[in-house]
Protein backbone atom coordinates (compact mmCIF):
# COMPACT_ATOMS: atom_id res chain seq x y z
CA UNK A 1 0.00 0.00 0.00
CA UNK A 2 2.49 2.59 1.12
CA UNK A 3 4.97 2.02 -1.68
CA UNK A 4 6.43 5.48 -1.95
CA UNK A 5 9.10 4.26 -4.33
CA UNK A 6 6.55 4.82 -7.09
CA UNK A 7 6.59 8.56 -6.33
CA UNK A 8 10.37 8.71 -6.52
CA UNK A 9 10.40 6.94 -9.91
CA UNK A 10 7.80 9.31 -11.37
CA UNK A 11 8.84 12.46 -9.59
CA UNK A 12 10.33 14.20 -12.67
CA UNK A 13 7.18 13.59 -14.71
CA UNK A 14 4.81 14.66 -11.95
CA UNK A 15 6.68 17.79 -10.95
CA UNK A 16 8.29 18.99 -14.18
CA UNK A 17 5.55 18.04 -16.63
CA UNK A 18 2.53 18.15 -14.34
CA UNK A 19 3.36 20.97 -11.97
CA UNK A 20 5.65 23.26 -13.95
CA UNK A 21 4.71 22.33 -17.52
CA UNK A 22 8.22 21.51 -18.78
CA UNK A 23 8.11 18.47 -21.07
CA UNK A 24 6.63 16.95 -24.20
CA UNK A 25 3.01 17.81 -23.41
CA UNK A 26 1.36 21.19 -23.13
CA UNK A 27 0.55 21.35 -19.46
CA UNK A 28 1.58 22.54 -16.05
CA UNK A 29 -0.52 23.60 -13.07
CA UNK A 30 1.60 26.72 -12.50
CA UNK A 31 1.67 27.64 -16.18
CA UNK A 32 -2.12 27.71 -16.13
CA UNK A 33 -2.66 29.12 -12.64
CA UNK A 34 -0.45 32.21 -12.91
CA UNK A 35 -1.93 33.75 -16.11
CA UNK A 36 -5.44 32.77 -14.92
CA UNK A 37 -4.94 34.67 -11.68
CA UNK A 38 -3.42 37.75 -13.36
CA UNK A 39 -5.94 38.02 -16.21
CA UNK A 40 -8.90 37.07 -14.02
CA UNK A 41 -7.96 39.80 -11.57
CA UNK A 42 -7.68 42.43 -14.32
CA UNK A 43 -11.09 41.49 -15.73
CA UNK A 44 -12.44 41.35 -12.17
CA UNK A 45 -11.37 44.96 -11.50
CA UNK A 46 -13.31 46.15 -14.57
CA UNK A 47 -16.37 44.12 -13.57
CA UNK A 48 -16.22 45.39 -9.98
CA UNK A 49 -16.10 48.99 -11.20
CA UNK A 50 -18.86 48.35 -13.76
CA UNK A 51 -21.08 46.93 -10.98
CA UNK A 52 -20.99 50.35 -9.29
CA UNK A 53 -21.40 52.44 -12.42
CA UNK A 54 -24.09 55.16 -12.29
CA UNK A 55 -25.08 54.27 -15.88
CA UNK A 56 -27.64 51.46 -15.83
CA UNK A 57 -26.56 50.07 -19.21
CA UNK A 58 -23.12 49.33 -17.73
CA UNK A 59 -24.31 48.30 -14.26
CA UNK A 60 -27.08 45.88 -15.29
CA UNK A 61 -25.03 43.72 -17.72
CA UNK A 62 -22.17 43.55 -15.20
CA UNK A 63 -24.59 42.44 -12.47
CA UNK A 64 -26.10 39.82 -14.77
CA UNK A 65 -22.61 38.57 -15.66
CA UNK A 66 -21.73 38.11 -11.99
CA UNK A 67 -25.03 36.50 -11.03
CA UNK A 68 -24.93 34.16 -14.02
CA UNK A 69 -21.43 32.80 -13.47
CA UNK A 70 -21.93 32.47 -9.73
CA UNK A 71 -24.95 30.23 -10.36
CA UNK A 72 -23.22 27.82 -12.74
CA UNK A 73 -20.62 25.11 -11.97
CA UNK A 74 -17.11 25.75 -13.31
CA UNK A 75 -17.15 22.35 -15.03
CA UNK A 76 -20.10 23.59 -17.08
CA UNK A 77 -18.23 26.77 -18.07
CA UNK A 78 -15.20 24.72 -19.15
CA UNK A 79 -17.41 22.58 -21.39
CA UNK A 80 -19.10 25.69 -22.77
CA UNK A 81 -15.73 27.14 -23.80
CA UNK A 82 -14.58 23.81 -25.15
CA UNK A 83 -17.52 23.60 -27.56
CA UNK A 84 -18.20 27.25 -28.26
CA UNK A 85 -14.70 28.65 -28.86
CA UNK A 86 -13.97 26.57 -31.99
CA UNK A 87 -17.40 27.54 -33.40
CA UNK A 88 -17.02 31.25 -32.74
CA UNK A 89 -13.33 31.54 -33.65
CA UNK A 90 -13.66 29.06 -36.54
CA UNK A 91 -10.43 27.29 -35.68
CA UNK A 92 -9.22 24.60 -33.29
CA UNK A 93 -8.20 25.96 -29.86
CA UNK A 94 -5.64 24.11 -27.71
CA UNK A 95 -6.69 22.91 -24.24
CA UNK A 96 -4.55 25.61 -22.66
CA UNK A 97 -6.49 28.38 -24.40
CA UNK A 98 -9.85 26.84 -23.56
CA UNK A 99 -8.98 26.31 -19.90
CA UNK A 100 -7.43 29.78 -19.52
CA UNK A 101 -10.49 31.48 -21.06
CA UNK A 102 -12.90 29.49 -18.89
CA UNK A 103 -10.99 30.28 -15.68
CA UNK A 104 -10.57 33.97 -16.46
CA UNK A 105 -14.26 34.44 -17.33
CA UNK A 106 -15.49 32.37 -14.38
CA UNK A 107 -13.20 33.71 -11.68
CA UNK A 108 -13.64 37.32 -12.81
CA UNK A 109 -17.25 37.09 -11.57
CA UNK A 110 -16.08 36.16 -8.06
CA UNK A 111 -13.13 38.56 -8.10
CA UNK A 112 -15.46 41.32 -9.34
CA UNK A 113 -17.59 40.94 -6.22
CA UNK A 114 -14.49 41.25 -4.03
CA UNK A 115 -13.37 44.36 -5.92
CA UNK A 116 -16.85 45.86 -5.56
CA UNK A 117 -16.87 45.25 -1.80
CA UNK A 118 -13.38 46.74 -1.58
CA UNK A 119 -14.38 49.89 -3.47
CA UNK A 120 -17.46 50.26 -1.28
CA UNK A 121 -15.28 50.04 1.82
CA UNK A 122 -13.50 53.29 0.88
CA UNK A 123 -15.24 56.24 2.60
CA UNK A 124 -17.31 58.46 0.28
CA UNK A 125 -15.38 61.52 1.41
CA UNK A 126 -12.38 60.23 -0.54
CA UNK A 127 -14.30 60.40 -3.84
CA UNK A 128 -15.50 63.90 -3.05
CA UNK A 129 -12.02 65.02 -2.03
CA UNK A 130 -10.68 63.68 -5.34
CA UNK A 131 -13.35 65.55 -7.30
CA UNK A 132 -12.70 68.72 -5.28
CA UNK A 133 -9.01 68.52 -6.26
CA UNK A 134 -10.04 68.55 -9.92
CA UNK A 135 -9.57 64.85 -10.74
CA UNK A 136 -11.88 63.31 -13.31
CA UNK A 137 -13.89 60.33 -12.06
CA UNK A 138 -11.54 57.95 -13.93
CA UNK A 139 -8.50 59.59 -12.34
CA UNK A 140 -10.19 59.51 -8.94
CA UNK A 141 -10.81 55.77 -9.35
CA UNK A 142 -7.28 55.10 -10.59
CA UNK A 143 -5.27 57.20 -8.11
CA UNK A 144 -7.49 57.59 -5.04
CA UNK A 145 -10.07 54.81 -4.69
CA UNK A 146 -8.40 51.70 -6.14
CA UNK A 147 -5.11 51.90 -4.18
CA UNK A 148 -7.04 52.10 -0.91
CA UNK A 149 -9.62 49.53 -1.98
CA UNK A 150 -6.92 47.04 -3.02
CA UNK A 151 -5.40 47.23 0.44
CA UNK A 152 -8.73 46.32 2.04
CA UNK A 153 -9.33 43.45 -0.37
CA UNK A 154 -6.01 41.61 0.02
CA UNK A 155 -7.23 38.90 2.43
CA UNK A 156 -10.33 37.98 0.39
CA UNK A 157 -8.35 38.26 -2.85
CA UNK A 158 -5.74 35.75 -1.71
CA UNK A 159 -8.52 33.41 -0.54
CA UNK A 160 -10.04 33.59 -4.02
CA UNK A 161 -6.64 33.06 -5.66
CA UNK A 162 -6.32 29.87 -3.59
CA UNK A 163 -9.72 28.73 -4.86
CA UNK A 164 -8.61 29.46 -8.43
CA UNK A 165 -5.35 27.57 -7.91
CA UNK A 166 -7.30 24.51 -6.77
CA UNK A 167 -9.80 24.92 -9.61
CA UNK A 168 -7.04 24.61 -12.23
CA UNK A 169 -7.14 20.86 -11.51
CA UNK A 170 -10.43 20.80 -13.47
CA UNK A 171 -8.49 21.58 -16.67
CA UNK A 172 -7.47 17.91 -16.61
CA UNK A 173 -11.08 17.04 -17.58
CA UNK A 174 -10.49 18.35 -21.11
CA UNK A 175 -7.05 16.72 -21.27
CA UNK A 176 -4.72 19.53 -20.14
CA UNK A 177 -1.60 17.87 -18.65
CA UNK A 178 -1.60 19.46 -15.22
CA UNK A 179 -0.57 17.86 -11.94
CA UNK A 180 -3.87 15.97 -11.60
CA UNK A 181 -3.74 14.66 -15.17
CA UNK A 182 -0.09 13.67 -14.73
CA UNK A 183 -1.08 11.71 -11.62
CA UNK A 184 -3.81 9.95 -13.61
CA UNK A 185 -1.30 9.03 -16.33
CA UNK A 186 1.20 7.70 -13.79
CA UNK A 187 -1.54 5.78 -11.98
CA UNK A 188 -2.74 4.16 -15.20
CA UNK A 189 0.76 2.79 -15.67
CA UNK A 190 1.64 1.91 -12.09
CA UNK A 191 -1.78 1.19 -10.46
CA UNK A 192 -0.67 2.62 -7.10
CA UNK A 193 -3.53 5.06 -6.44
CA UNK A 194 -2.96 5.56 -2.73
CA UNK A 195 0.59 6.96 -2.70
CA UNK A 196 0.14 8.82 -6.02
CA UNK A 197 -3.03 10.69 -5.13
CA UNK A 198 -1.85 11.31 -1.57
CA UNK A 199 1.35 12.78 -2.98
CA UNK A 200 -0.37 15.25 -5.29
CA UNK A 201 -2.79 16.15 -2.48
CA UNK A 202 0.25 17.11 -0.40
CA UNK A 203 1.78 19.12 -3.29
CA UNK A 204 -1.46 21.09 -3.71
CA UNK A 205 -1.71 21.48 0.05
CA UNK A 206 1.80 22.90 0.40
CA UNK A 207 1.02 25.55 -2.25
CA UNK A 208 -2.41 26.56 -0.97
CA UNK A 209 -1.48 26.44 2.70
CA UNK A 210 1.54 28.67 2.21
CA UNK A 211 -0.65 31.09 0.25
CA UNK A 212 -3.17 31.18 3.10
CA UNK A 213 -0.38 31.71 5.70
CA UNK A 214 0.89 34.59 3.59
CA UNK A 215 -2.63 36.06 3.49
CA UNK A 216 -2.86 35.87 7.27
CA UNK A 217 0.54 37.56 7.58
CA UNK A 218 -0.53 40.36 5.21
CA UNK A 219 -3.78 40.78 7.13
CA UNK A 220 -1.83 41.23 10.37
CA UNK A 221 0.77 43.56 8.87
CA UNK A 222 -1.60 45.83 7.01
CA UNK A 223 -4.43 45.56 9.52
CA UNK A 224 -8.08 46.40 8.92
CA UNK A 225 -8.51 49.84 7.40
Amino acid at each position, binding site marked *: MLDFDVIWRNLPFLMLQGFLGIGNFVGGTLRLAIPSIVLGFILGIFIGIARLSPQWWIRVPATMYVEFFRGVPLVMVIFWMWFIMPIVLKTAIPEFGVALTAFVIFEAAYLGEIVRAGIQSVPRGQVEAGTALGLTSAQGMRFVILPQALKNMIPSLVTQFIVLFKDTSLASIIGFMDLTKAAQVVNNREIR*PFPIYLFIAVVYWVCTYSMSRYARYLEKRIGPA
Partner: protein
Amino acid sequence: MNYKFNWSVLWTGESGQWLLSGLITTLELSVAAWLLAVALGIISGALRTVRVWPLRAAATFYVEFFRNVPLLVWMFFWYFAVPPLLPQGIQDFLFAHGLEFWAAVCALGVYSGARFSEVLRSGIQSIPKTQLEASVASGLTTFQAYRYVILPVALRIIIPPGTNESLNLLKNSSVALTISVAELTFQTRQIETYTAKAIEALTAGTLIYLVLCVSIATLMSWVERRTAIPGLIVGGRQRR
Protein backbone atom coordinates in the same frame (compact mmCIF):
# COMPACT_ATOMS: atom_id res chain seq x y z
CA MET B 1 -17.48 25.79 -38.77
CA ASN B 2 -21.13 26.62 -39.28
CA TYR B 3 -23.37 25.69 -36.41
CA LYS B 4 -27.01 24.79 -37.08
CA PHE B 5 -29.28 25.03 -34.08
CA ASN B 6 -31.75 22.25 -33.49
CA TRP B 7 -33.46 22.76 -30.16
CA SER B 8 -35.79 19.81 -30.69
CA VAL B 9 -33.00 17.44 -29.58
CA LEU B 10 -33.95 18.44 -26.06
CA TRP B 11 -37.47 17.00 -26.23
CA THR B 12 -37.04 14.21 -28.75
CA GLY B 13 -35.40 10.86 -28.06
CA GLU B 14 -34.29 10.16 -24.53
CA SER B 15 -32.87 13.62 -23.74
CA GLY B 16 -35.68 14.55 -21.37
CA GLN B 17 -35.31 11.33 -19.43
CA TRP B 18 -31.54 11.77 -19.21
CA LEU B 19 -31.82 15.33 -17.95
CA LEU B 20 -34.40 14.29 -15.37
CA SER B 21 -32.36 11.35 -14.10
CA GLY B 22 -29.27 13.57 -14.06
CA LEU B 23 -31.13 16.18 -12.01
CA ILE B 24 -32.30 13.50 -9.56
CA THR B 25 -28.78 12.09 -9.18
CA THR B 26 -27.37 15.60 -8.65
CA LEU B 27 -29.96 16.21 -5.92
CA GLU B 28 -29.39 12.81 -4.28
CA LEU B 29 -25.64 13.29 -4.31
CA SER B 30 -25.89 16.86 -3.01
CA VAL B 31 -28.33 16.00 -0.21
CA ALA B 32 -26.28 13.00 0.98
CA ALA B 33 -23.03 14.98 0.81
CA TRP B 34 -24.71 17.97 2.49
CA LEU B 35 -25.82 15.87 5.47
CA LEU B 36 -22.30 14.48 5.86
CA ALA B 37 -20.75 17.94 5.43
CA VAL B 38 -23.06 19.60 7.97
CA ALA B 39 -22.42 16.86 10.55
CA LEU B 40 -18.64 17.07 10.06
CA GLY B 41 -18.78 20.88 9.91
CA ILE B 42 -20.72 21.24 13.18
CA ILE B 43 -18.51 18.77 15.06
CA SER B 44 -15.18 20.11 13.80
CA GLY B 45 -16.29 23.75 13.85
CA ALA B 46 -17.33 23.43 17.49
CA LEU B 47 -14.17 21.49 18.41
CA ARG B 48 -12.01 24.27 16.98
CA THR B 49 -13.38 26.65 19.62
CA VAL B 50 -12.94 24.41 22.72
CA ARG B 51 -10.11 24.66 25.25
CA VAL B 52 -8.82 21.04 25.05
CA TRP B 53 -5.91 21.35 22.63
CA PRO B 54 -5.71 17.76 21.20
CA LEU B 55 -9.35 18.07 20.06
CA ARG B 56 -8.67 21.50 18.63
CA ALA B 57 -5.53 20.28 16.83
CA ALA B 58 -7.34 17.30 15.30
CA ALA B 59 -10.15 19.54 14.04
CA THR B 60 -7.65 22.08 12.67
CA PHE B 61 -5.75 19.36 10.82
CA TYR B 62 -8.97 18.07 9.27
CA VAL B 63 -10.07 21.52 8.12
CA GLU B 64 -6.72 22.73 6.81
CA PHE B 65 -5.86 19.54 4.96
CA PHE B 66 -9.18 18.76 3.29
CA ARG B 67 -10.10 22.34 2.45
CA ASN B 68 -6.80 23.16 0.74
CA VAL B 69 -6.66 20.29 -1.77
CA PRO B 70 -8.75 20.35 -4.99
CA LEU B 71 -12.05 18.48 -4.86
CA LEU B 72 -11.09 16.63 -8.05
CA VAL B 73 -8.09 15.09 -6.28
CA TRP B 74 -10.36 13.97 -3.43
CA MET B 75 -12.76 12.42 -5.96
CA PHE B 76 -9.95 10.28 -7.38
CA PHE B 77 -8.64 9.56 -3.92
CA TRP B 78 -11.95 8.24 -2.54
CA TYR B 79 -12.77 6.39 -5.75
CA PHE B 80 -9.43 4.77 -6.63
CA ALA B 81 -7.28 4.82 -3.51
CA VAL B 82 -9.65 4.12 -0.60
CA PRO B 83 -11.70 1.06 -1.70
CA PRO B 84 -8.67 -1.31 -2.06
CA LEU B 85 -7.84 -0.60 1.60
CA LEU B 86 -11.26 -1.80 2.80
CA PRO B 87 -12.05 -5.41 3.85
CA GLN B 88 -13.11 -7.68 0.99
CA GLY B 89 -16.75 -7.93 2.16
CA ILE B 90 -17.26 -4.17 2.16
CA GLN B 91 -15.51 -3.87 -1.22
CA ASP B 92 -17.86 -6.42 -2.79
CA PHE B 93 -20.85 -4.64 -1.29
CA LEU B 94 -19.70 -1.26 -2.61
CA PHE B 95 -18.96 -2.57 -6.10
CA ALA B 96 -22.46 -4.05 -6.20
CA HIS B 97 -24.15 -0.88 -4.90
CA GLY B 98 -22.76 2.01 -6.92
CA LEU B 99 -19.25 2.60 -5.63
CA GLU B 100 -18.79 5.80 -7.63
CA PHE B 101 -21.85 7.40 -6.02
CA TRP B 102 -20.68 6.71 -2.46
CA ALA B 103 -17.11 7.73 -3.30
CA ALA B 104 -18.49 11.03 -4.61
CA VAL B 105 -20.60 11.48 -1.46
CA CYS B 106 -17.51 10.96 0.71
CA ALA B 107 -15.30 13.24 -1.40
CA LEU B 108 -17.86 16.05 -1.62
CA GLY B 109 -19.07 15.64 1.98
CA VAL B 110 -15.65 15.54 3.63
CA TYR B 111 -14.34 18.41 1.46
CA SER B 112 -17.38 20.62 2.05
CA GLY B 113 -17.46 19.69 5.74
CA ALA B 114 -14.09 21.39 6.12
CA ARG B 115 -15.51 24.50 4.47
CA PHE B 116 -18.69 24.43 6.59
CA SER B 117 -16.48 24.10 9.62
CA GLU B 118 -14.85 27.47 8.94
CA VAL B 119 -18.26 29.10 8.51
CA LEU B 120 -19.52 27.65 11.80
CA ARG B 121 -16.34 28.59 13.66
CA SER B 122 -16.69 32.23 12.62
CA GLY B 123 -20.36 32.07 13.67
CA ILE B 124 -19.45 30.73 17.11
CA GLN B 125 -16.68 33.30 17.51
CA SER B 126 -19.11 36.13 16.75
CA ILE B 127 -21.16 35.18 19.82
CA PRO B 128 -19.99 37.12 22.89
CA LYS B 129 -17.83 34.95 25.19
CA THR B 130 -20.05 35.95 28.11
CA GLN B 131 -22.80 33.69 26.70
CA LEU B 132 -20.67 30.60 27.29
CA GLU B 133 -19.54 31.86 30.69
CA ALA B 134 -23.14 32.59 31.71
CA SER B 135 -24.27 29.11 30.67
CA VAL B 136 -21.45 27.43 32.57
CA ALA B 137 -22.16 29.64 35.58
CA SER B 138 -25.80 28.56 35.57
CA GLY B 139 -24.70 24.93 35.92
CA LEU B 140 -24.53 23.61 32.34
CA THR B 141 -21.63 21.40 31.27
CA THR B 142 -19.57 22.66 28.30
CA PHE B 143 -21.34 20.14 26.07
CA GLN B 144 -24.77 21.32 27.26
CA ALA B 145 -23.74 24.95 26.80
CA TYR B 146 -22.79 24.28 23.19
CA ARG B 147 -25.89 22.14 22.57
CA TYR B 148 -28.51 24.47 24.09
CA VAL B 149 -26.99 27.97 24.02
CA ILE B 150 -24.10 28.46 21.59
CA LEU B 151 -25.04 26.26 18.61
CA PRO B 152 -28.71 27.31 18.31
CA VAL B 153 -27.60 30.95 18.01
CA ALA B 154 -24.55 30.23 15.85
CA LEU B 155 -26.54 28.14 13.35
CA ARG B 156 -28.97 31.02 12.86
CA ILE B 157 -26.18 33.55 12.40
CA ILE B 158 -24.48 31.47 9.70
CA ILE B 159 -27.56 30.98 7.50
CA PRO B 160 -26.36 33.45 4.79
CA PRO B 161 -22.75 32.18 4.49
CA GLY B 162 -24.00 28.62 5.05
CA THR B 163 -26.40 28.99 2.13
CA ASN B 164 -23.49 30.20 0.02
CA GLU B 165 -21.47 27.10 0.95
CA SER B 166 -24.48 24.84 0.28
CA LEU B 167 -24.79 26.34 -3.21
CA ASN B 168 -21.06 25.76 -3.70
CA LEU B 169 -21.62 22.14 -2.71
CA LEU B 170 -24.43 21.79 -5.25
CA LYS B 171 -22.29 23.29 -8.02
CA ASN B 172 -19.25 21.25 -6.97
CA SER B 173 -21.29 18.04 -7.30
CA SER B 174 -20.66 18.44 -11.04
CA VAL B 175 -17.04 17.36 -10.44
CA ALA B 176 -18.43 13.85 -9.74
CA LEU B 177 -18.73 13.33 -13.48
CA THR B 178 -14.97 12.63 -13.51
CA ILE B 179 -15.60 9.36 -11.65
CA SER B 180 -18.62 8.70 -13.90
CA VAL B 181 -21.47 9.47 -11.54
CA ALA B 182 -24.41 10.04 -13.91
CA GLU B 183 -25.33 13.48 -12.53
CA LEU B 184 -26.61 16.50 -14.43
CA THR B 185 -23.37 17.58 -16.13
CA PHE B 186 -22.64 13.97 -17.09
CA GLN B 187 -26.09 13.64 -18.69
CA THR B 188 -25.64 16.97 -20.48
CA ARG B 189 -22.45 15.57 -22.00
CA GLN B 190 -24.31 12.38 -22.89
CA ILE B 191 -26.93 14.33 -24.87
CA GLU B 192 -24.08 16.14 -26.62
CA THR B 193 -22.41 12.82 -27.48
CA TYR B 194 -25.60 11.31 -28.89
CA THR B 195 -26.92 14.33 -30.80
CA ALA B 196 -23.73 16.35 -31.50
CA LYS B 197 -25.73 19.42 -30.42
CA ALA B 198 -23.42 20.88 -27.77
CA ILE B 199 -24.94 24.34 -27.35
CA GLU B 200 -28.50 23.05 -26.90
CA ALA B 201 -27.44 20.41 -24.39
CA LEU B 202 -25.25 22.81 -22.39
CA THR B 203 -28.01 25.44 -22.36
CA ALA B 204 -30.44 22.95 -20.85
CA GLY B 205 -27.96 21.85 -18.17
CA THR B 206 -26.92 25.42 -17.36
CA LEU B 207 -30.53 26.59 -16.99
CA ILE B 208 -31.33 23.74 -14.60
CA TYR B 209 -28.34 24.67 -12.41
CA LEU B 210 -29.35 28.35 -12.44
CA VAL B 211 -32.96 27.57 -11.48
CA LEU B 212 -31.78 25.25 -8.69
CA CYS B 213 -29.39 27.87 -7.27
CA VAL B 214 -31.91 30.72 -7.43
CA SER B 215 -34.68 28.67 -5.80
CA ILE B 216 -32.43 27.48 -2.97
CA ALA B 217 -31.22 31.05 -2.34
CA THR B 218 -34.84 32.28 -2.21
CA LEU B 219 -35.91 29.45 0.10
CA MET B 220 -33.02 30.08 2.47
CA SER B 221 -33.66 33.82 2.75
CA TRP B 222 -37.21 32.85 3.82
CA VAL B 223 -35.81 30.39 6.38
CA GLU B 224 -33.49 33.12 7.62
CA ARG B 225 -36.40 35.49 8.24
CA ARG B 226 -38.44 32.73 9.93
CA THR B 227 -35.70 31.67 12.34
CA ALA B 228 -34.33 35.14 13.19
CA ILE B 229 -34.13 35.82 16.94
CA PRO B 230 -35.86 39.15 17.57
CA GLY B 231 -33.60 41.81 19.02
CA LEU B 232 -30.40 39.82 18.61
CA ILE B 233 -27.67 42.28 17.62
CA VAL B 234 -25.37 39.70 16.01
CA GLY B 235 -28.22 38.31 13.94
CA GLY B 236 -29.36 41.77 12.91
CA ARG B 237 -25.91 42.88 11.86
CA GLN B 238 -25.54 39.95 9.47
CA ARG B 239 -28.62 40.91 7.49
CA ARG B 240 -28.36 43.55 4.81
